[in-house]
């Protein structure tokens, strides 16, 4: 921790070598995060690089109470959300969304960020709640498909129903999720995400 503070201090003073060390330590971890969000590695990479570049340019203005990597984490998350507005949802997104809280907590713990800003995962918690509120069979099909990534055929075999039945469950699940999430302020964002 003392070491991290020293590096942060050096970066704030404009030490490029310290910044390089910092970049090398955190780039991959943050890229993984952004890729989970965006699922397009080139776009995710641009977002992470851009965030580092902004950090370097604003190094003197960043509040000292905050870890630099914590600042990056937030900047990247916000940029990813912006990006999602322009992009169709990817298969992995629901899996990511339903695990968002856990992932967020690991990163926040790692980056020494306060765990208290609850508004952070309001949307994600809502998605989870909405999934949980589906009728049991429908939820099971939805989770097997969207979260565990099984094919419709596999699910049909596993649950001893027809493929058509699986597809119907998924269509209805999506419809239900949409209507349940409609009341959210970020409705446009959330609805755009759901297939």
């Amino acid at each position: 921790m003392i070491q991290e503070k020293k590096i942060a201090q050096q970066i704030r003073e404009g030490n490029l070598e310290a910044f390089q060390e910092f970049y090398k330590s955190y780039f991959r971890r943050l890229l993984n995060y952004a890729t989970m969000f965006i699922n397009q590695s080139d776009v995710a990479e641009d977002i992470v690089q851009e965030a580092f570049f902004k950090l370097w340019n604003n190094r003197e203005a960043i509040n000292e109470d905050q870890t630099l990597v914590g600042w990056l984490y937030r900047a990247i998350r916000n940029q990813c959300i912006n990006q999602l507005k322009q992009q169709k949802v990817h298969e992995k997104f629901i899996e990511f969304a339903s695990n968002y809280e856990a992932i967020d907590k690991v990163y926040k713990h790692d980056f020494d960020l306060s765990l208290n800003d609850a508004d952070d995962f309001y949307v994600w918690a809502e998605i989870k709640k909405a999934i949980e509120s589906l009728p049991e069979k429908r939820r099971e099909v939805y989770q097997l498909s969207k979260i565990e990534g099984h094919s419709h055929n596999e699910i049909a075999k596993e649950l001893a129903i027809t493929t058509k039945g699986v597809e119907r469950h998924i269509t209805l699940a999506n419809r239900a999720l949409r209507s349940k999430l409609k009341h959210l302020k970020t409705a446009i964002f959330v609805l755009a995400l759901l297939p």
Partner: protein
Amino acid sequence: MNDNLQDIEKLVGKYIDGTASIKEIAAIHTWLSESEANKVAFTKLKQECKQKQQSVANADWLKFEQKYGNAVKPSKKGKHLLGFISIAASISLVVGVSIHLMSNIKDNYSAVLAEASAAEVPEKTTINLSDGEQITLETSHSVVEIDNQGKQILLEDERVVEASGDTKSSKPGINQIIVPYGKTAELLLADGTKVWLNAGSRFVFPDHFNKQPNREVVLIGEAFFDVSHNADQPFKVITDEMVYTVLGTSFNIQSLPNSASVSAVLVEGSLQVEKKTLLNKQKVILKPGQKSQFLPKQDRMHVTNVNTAFYTSWKDGYLVLDKNRLGKLIKQIEQFYHSELVISNELIDMPTQLSGKLLLNEDPEQVYSALCDLTGMTYRIVANKVVFEKQ
């Protein structure tokens, strides 16, 4: 329990390397929330996992640097701090550059080059060897040769010093030669490449180029290169703003401090000129007889056809005179002797019949009077300035 710990170790490692899946990160979360002890263990594991994947990390940084290039520079504060330690400047320069040559990351030079261009130029030609030894040469045109093994350095055909680098490894000794104003030097590198250094230049070069992907050298100032051909190991000249890449050719590079002039003139072969900011990817390939000039205000490269003799004759100890070139000639003389010449525009524009050669004598006053003889002017020295007037 042991198995469990090993699993967690693996998971944290993957998390740090950025290869963990969503489920794996979720598993770390479950483990973290089990106990406070696990949180402490996480911090410890993080430290242990840090140093893996250095090659990936280096490549990541290189990509970043290429994208943002010159936009990412150390702040001026840092430069000031370094400026105070002027005695250590030449040593830190060598160290900084040796790191660069190993890591192959171009922009590490930015700070080094900025430092060096601000440092004082010594009175005598000086060589700083990688082991810290400093050698001064008395001649006005010094000749330095490195044997083809990279083991010895021959000075002025008589003195021999041992090179300090390990010839078997890829870590050569990194040497620097500084040529004062009014003097020149001639250097034979281990690969057979010949380099002429113009007055007021600094040049950083390794004892040998063994086991390196490129033959890399650093220049601040002006030099003429006659590069020995080796298609497998491109020769790269790194300057403040540019990287010049060649396979085997002869060319002149001028890269004066503070971007006063950043140009290259190609005599023979082919030369790739690349601006270091790859943000806007500027690259030109020169043909023989062409000159590239970087225009900093417009941030672009300008290529023209030139008479190469005007730009390269200094290496043979004279400047080529041609009519209508008085203004340029004045600049060349100023650069060579680091003096300030004052001459009215009226005199510069005056039609003259300059032609022939102007010998670059060690004593600048001989050059000033020769110039006066040729042009019918007189000169006097007023407050360190050389003022030319009509006779």
